[in-house]
């Protein structure tokens, strides 16, 4: 971590989460990226984006729960038409993928970009499988003539999962970019902000699914 100076981030931190403005000065022996720090890994800009995304999903989840409270019968009935096996599979895929991304970060921190690329590719393979499994599910619903307008349950189910699905695709684009840049030698043990930013985004995609899965598929 380099020298800290006042950045725009310092200025609107307080606005966003209501903390007081402080300028952090870390002792020189604590500059290793694995040590205590003041900001999450990666670029703060991506974290602002992550917060915005989480906010949307959070409101969507709460909306689902309250809409369900008004139509318990309907939600319970149609929830049974969902494919819980593929949802389980998808959950495991995303968790595994997230784990692989963590390993990729650890590799680059050890300055091993070869391993880093391998872990990234493995993570992308998991992501790709998620996309395939989910597409099969969507194709199944589409074939059954189900759309956003079928009923409130399917409206939420399709909105949430499709919105998340698009995030997986965006995440895949980001992972691809990271893999290419790693291959070009853009990251190293001392400079890997970019890859940590992308990784944080991918974990967010995973995190959202971890709540989505029980909420939409299991809780009744």
């Amino acid at each position: 971590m380099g020298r800290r100076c006042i950045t725009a981030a310092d200025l609107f931190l307080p606005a966003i989460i209501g903390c007081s403005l402080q300028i952090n000065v870390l002792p020189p022996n604590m500059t290793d990226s694995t040590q205590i720090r003041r900001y999450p890994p990666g670029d703060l800009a991506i974290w602002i984006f992550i917060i915005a995304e989480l906010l949307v999903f959070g409101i969507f989840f709460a909306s689902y729960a309250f809409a369900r409270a008004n139509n318990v019968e309907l939600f319970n009935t149609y929830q049974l038409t969902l494919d819980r096996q593929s949802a389980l599979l998808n959950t495991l895929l995303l968790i595994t993928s997230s784990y692989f991304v963590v390993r990729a970060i650890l590799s680059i921190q050890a300055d091993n970009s070869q391993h880093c690329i391998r872990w990234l590719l493995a993570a992308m393979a998991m992501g790709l499988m998620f996309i395939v499994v989910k597409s099969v599910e969507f194709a199944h619903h589409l074939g059954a003539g189900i759309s956003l307008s079928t009923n409130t349950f399917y409206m939420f189910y399709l909105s949430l999962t499709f919105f998340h699905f698009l995030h997986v695709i965006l995440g895949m684009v980001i992972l691809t970019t990271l893999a290419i840049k790693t291959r070009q030698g853009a990251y190293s043990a001392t400079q890997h902000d970019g890859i940590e930013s992308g990784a944080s985004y991918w974990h967010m995609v995973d995190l959202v699914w971890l709540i989505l899965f029980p909420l939409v598929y299991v809780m009744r």
Partner: protein
Amino acid sequence: MNALMKIKSCTWIYWALVFLTLITYVISRAGYSGLTVSLSVLVIALFKGQLIGNHFMGLSRVRGPWRWVIFIWLFIPGSLIVTAFTLAS
């Protein structure tokens, strides 16, 4: 913490996540339903979310307000969901 230990610890977290996911699935397959089951499943999910935030997203090493970003996110929608499910039953 050396590199090997870091790998070990995140692998442990990974297996914990897998295990908790399987528990959720088993509960669902066994056909358990009702408020208590639903809320337990939710609590498991929120806990998993916190594991991701702390260990995969690296927030456990962060001090200060950013430390709580994921926690707050899990807490607020989580409590809204609890409220809605409680009202519905």
